[in-house]
């Protein structure tokens, strides 16, 4: 600690900026994710609002120096509300040529590129496909390039700890972090503490890393940096007071599932099969055993869904989770849950398709599958997660609906949300209203498919309950008794009641609100899922520019909120940005016969605020 404290001194002449986007990029082995997390934590402690996005390589561990082995971490932090991890980069830090070639396109014109020139060896240049060293020719004109031999400087900084060259180089990410801390006038203490805790058993490694961190910081401070680069100040944002943490979508959904199960007074049986990016949920839940959470890594997605259904039948809350291809496999089983009217939560962490597609890239292209993707008339509620922290509430809501209405519920999240993070005002778990499940135990007049008059839900009975033995199954069931029934009119009636039950949920969810702007504007931009952030920022920006535009963002995809049709009718035009070829648009056009127009992007990356601003302008300024 003393080392850090010693060289901390006030900065002057810092340029005050509202927000900044920084990306650290390097080889998979360069520790970019850790670097990013440390910068994030420090920004959070400094009171900034922020959003981050890690970008892992598709390969597990590609050979060092290759373009497909580049790992990156991006953070957008600011003195105002931050809605996305940022469009273009103010600062790109690259630890090798591969990181430069794969990330340069995202840097703002005249943006800052800081490169570890020590890693720009001929070999690494060749691996990245460079025939010349870009740091040495004029190919980086238009950027403010800072070449620093971070490798050498790191090795020097840590030499007192007697590490090998290879070991010493492991700290170069901390050197870079120190430099960026200096640029933004950040305190190093939190990272120093964290390094000491992390390497408690390896004090030399801890010290080396701290030394590198300090060296990077000192390098900036001692004016060895080119003057035109500048140093910046990002003031704290106006943020609701309270206790905060950063949270990813995977974390928020898993915590929400746990919270929801506790609110319902149920045990969880989380049954899944690994798949990118859904596996993160399985990993999270597997660490919640002290809450009695059962996790089951099944032999495949079908077995996972089937086991979850079995668990729900037995009186636990069955949850199953996957991504697109795995969800497709579960559909037949989901049909069984719909038919037998058992609660079940299905988390779909969408990724770019079709087929295997781009497993590590994000997309919103499973809405069709969620709403329509089953044999038979098989309605099922679908709700969606809009931000990394939103998963907490959405997961709770999924459990509430599933158990109250005895139905499977699909939650749509996506690869972006799963991995992205943002600060989260930690709620008090006791503040959420409980919705304890009342299992049926009364044998009087019991019939397994006799419905609650209001919700149309059938009773839930735990096997083991005396005198309520009964049989259920996937063949059409007789209204009330649940016995197999081939009666034509009964099938009609049951098909209708299944649809009514699900549609009826629209009376039990909030009316749709306008997120930004007002009803009746010239243009409504309506989205769902992870487009929330960019749409929100773009609409806000355009309103500041005086354009008559509003944002509507859906949590509930099916059934849609009861006032949505009327609300949408109040706008002159409707634009539906989606990371698919127009799936929500189909739903809206079908339901409301409104000429909703799509803005569709399927390149595996979230919308840029700029793209949305352009689209809004084009529609309002023509």
């Amino acid at each position, binding site marked *: 600690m003393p080392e850090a404290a010693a060289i901390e001194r006030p900065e002057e002449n810092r340029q005050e900026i509202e927000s900044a986007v920084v990306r650290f990029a390097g080889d998979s082995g360069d520790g970019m994710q850790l670097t990013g997390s440390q910068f994030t934590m420090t920004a959070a*402690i400094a*009171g900034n609002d922020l959003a981050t996005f890690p970008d892992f390589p598709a390969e597990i561990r590609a050979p060092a120096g290759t373009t497909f082995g580049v790992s990156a971490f991006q953070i957008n932090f600011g003195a105002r509300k931050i809605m996305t991890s940022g469009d273009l980069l103010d600062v790109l830090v690259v630890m090798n040529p591969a990181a430069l070639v794969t990330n340069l396109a995202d840097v703002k014109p005249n943006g800052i590129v800081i490169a570890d020139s020590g890693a720009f060896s001929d070999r690494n240049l060749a691996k990245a496909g460079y025939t010349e060293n870009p740091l040495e020719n004029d190919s980086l004109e238009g950027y403010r390039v800072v070449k620093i031999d971070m490798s050498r400087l790191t090795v020097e900084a840590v030499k007192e700890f007697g590490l090998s060259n290879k070991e010493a180089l492991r700290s170069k990410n901390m050197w870079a972090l120190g430099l960026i801390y200096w640029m933004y006038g950040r305190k190093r203490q*939190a990272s120093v503490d*964290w390094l000491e805790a992390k390497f408690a058993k390896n004090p030399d490694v801890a010290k080396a890393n701290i030394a590198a961190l300090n060296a990077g910081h000192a390098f900036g401070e001692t004016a060895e940096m080119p003057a035109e680069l500048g140093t910046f100040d990002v003031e704290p944002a106006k*943020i*609701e*007071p*309270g*206790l*905060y*943490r950063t949270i990813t979508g995977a974390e928020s959904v898993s915590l929400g599932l746990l919270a929801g199960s*506790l609110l319902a007074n149920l*045990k969880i*049986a989380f049954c899944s099969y690994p798949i990118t990016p859904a596996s993160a949920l399985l990993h999270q839940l597997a660490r919640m*055993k*002290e*809450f*009695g959470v*059962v996790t*089951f890594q*099944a*032999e*495949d997605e*079908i*077995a*996972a869904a*089937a*086991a*979850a*259904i*079995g*668990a*729900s*039948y*037995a*009186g*636990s809350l*069955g949850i199953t989770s996957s991504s697109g291809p795995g969800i497709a496999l579960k559909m037949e*089983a989901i*049909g*069984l849950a719909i038919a037998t009217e058992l609660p079940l939560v299905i988390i779909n962490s969408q990724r770019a398709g079709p087929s295997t597609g781009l497993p590590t890239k994000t997309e919103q292209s499973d809405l069709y599958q969620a709403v329509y993707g089953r044999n038979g008339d098989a309605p099922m509620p679908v709700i969606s997660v809009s931000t990394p922290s939103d998963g907490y509430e959405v997961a709770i809501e999924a459990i509430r609906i599933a158990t109250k209405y005895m139905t499977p519920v699909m939650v749509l999240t996506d690869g972006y949300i799963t991995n992205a993070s943002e600060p989260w*005002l*930690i*709620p008090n778990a*006791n503040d959420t209203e409980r919705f304890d499940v009342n299992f049926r135990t009364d044998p009087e007049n019991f019939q397994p498919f006799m419905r609650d008059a209001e919700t149309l839900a059938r009773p839930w009975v*735990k*096997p*083991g*309950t005396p*005198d*309520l*033995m*009964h*049989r*259920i*199954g*996937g*063949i059409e069931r007789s209204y009330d008794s649940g*016995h*197999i029934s081939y009666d034509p009119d009964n099938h009609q009636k049951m098909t209708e009641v299944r649809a009514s039950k699900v549609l009826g949920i629209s009376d039990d969810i909030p009316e749709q609100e306008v997120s930004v702007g007002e009803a009746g504007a010239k243009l409504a931009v309506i989205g769902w899922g992870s487009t929330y952030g960019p749409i929100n920022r773009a609409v806000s920006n355009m309103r500041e520019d005086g354009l008559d535009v509003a944002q509507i963002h859906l949590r509930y995809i099916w059934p849609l909120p009861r006032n949505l049709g009327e609300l949408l009718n109040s706008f002159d035009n409707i634009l539906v940005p989606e990371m698919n070829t127009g799936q929500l648009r189909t739903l809206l056009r079908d339901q409301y016969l409104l000429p909703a127009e799509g803005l569709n992007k399927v390149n595996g990356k979230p919308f840029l605020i700029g793209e949305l601003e352009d689209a809004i302008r084009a529609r309002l300024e023509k």
Partner: protein
Amino acid sequence: MNIQSPPEKLKARDFATDQEVRWCPGCGDYAILKGVQNTLAQLEADPKNTVFVSGIGCAARFPYYMETYGFHTIHGRSPAVASGVKLANPELDVWVVGGDGDMLSIGGNHTMHAIRRNIDLQILLFNNQIYGLTKGQYSPTSKIGTKSPSTPLGSIDNPVSAAQFALGVGGTFIARSSDILQKHLPEVLKRAYTHKGASFVEIFQNCIVYNDGAFKHFTEKSIQAEMQIHLGHGQPLLFGEDKSKGLVLNREEMRLEVVTLGENGITESNIAIHDETNLSLATMLAQMDPPDFPVALGVLYAEPAPTYESAVHTQIEQATKDGGTADLNRLLQRGQTWTVE
């Protein structure tokens, strides 16, 4: 497993529902239904703690006829659904019922993994070597040359042996019986019930409509004694009228051979002794086929091992103990936090 004596002892018929049984007249499933109801009565099983889970097929209609909890699921997935039931509530007695198509064709993988995990289920495979419900296509257990609507010139694929399969995937309890063995069947089922872990029971079942007589080469009264060997742990492997035949191990060739007592100097001391815990022996017994060998019935293999669901819950209990209180607020606040004032 959970044997609580209800006030009055239940009879077999108390395990029957009021639903009309809808198998073809003469179907072997009737006899198995009776056998299972008898078994439960004899075990004094508690209907409220008993769950029958099935897939789709004639056999899979079974739960509708049992006055217990029942779940008629989808084709091939019953072992997975049943695994979920047992994981959620290990106190329940869970029986899984299905046909050869359900459990070895579309559901083969789930059967395999339920067995391998050793989840405490009683898995009853009604093997009629045909797809009954879909009107008679050949199944993965049908003999080569089976003519069926989908194989009008005869089937060409090697059938899979249910017992060999179960042994190969690490089963801890593997047994066989037949629809027509009304005394044998409940005994085998009781053993299956008592075994902790996945108990796999293959029950040869006659489909009178689409595959009549598939097993008559060893079930017909006149040849039963010659063509069946009933296994008993620690008992010599004798069969035939008057138990005059037996099995010996040809030690050079590592194969079983049929011998006749009294011939070539063979006495009972030469006869191999059944050892349920010997996997190699079980594998050899499972391979035996008429006419050269009798069919091995009874418990081929039984080697207790910890069950999956108990390990799951042990880990949970451990975590509860280790982790102290399970406090959601504490979990929400885990990791690096900061306060905004």
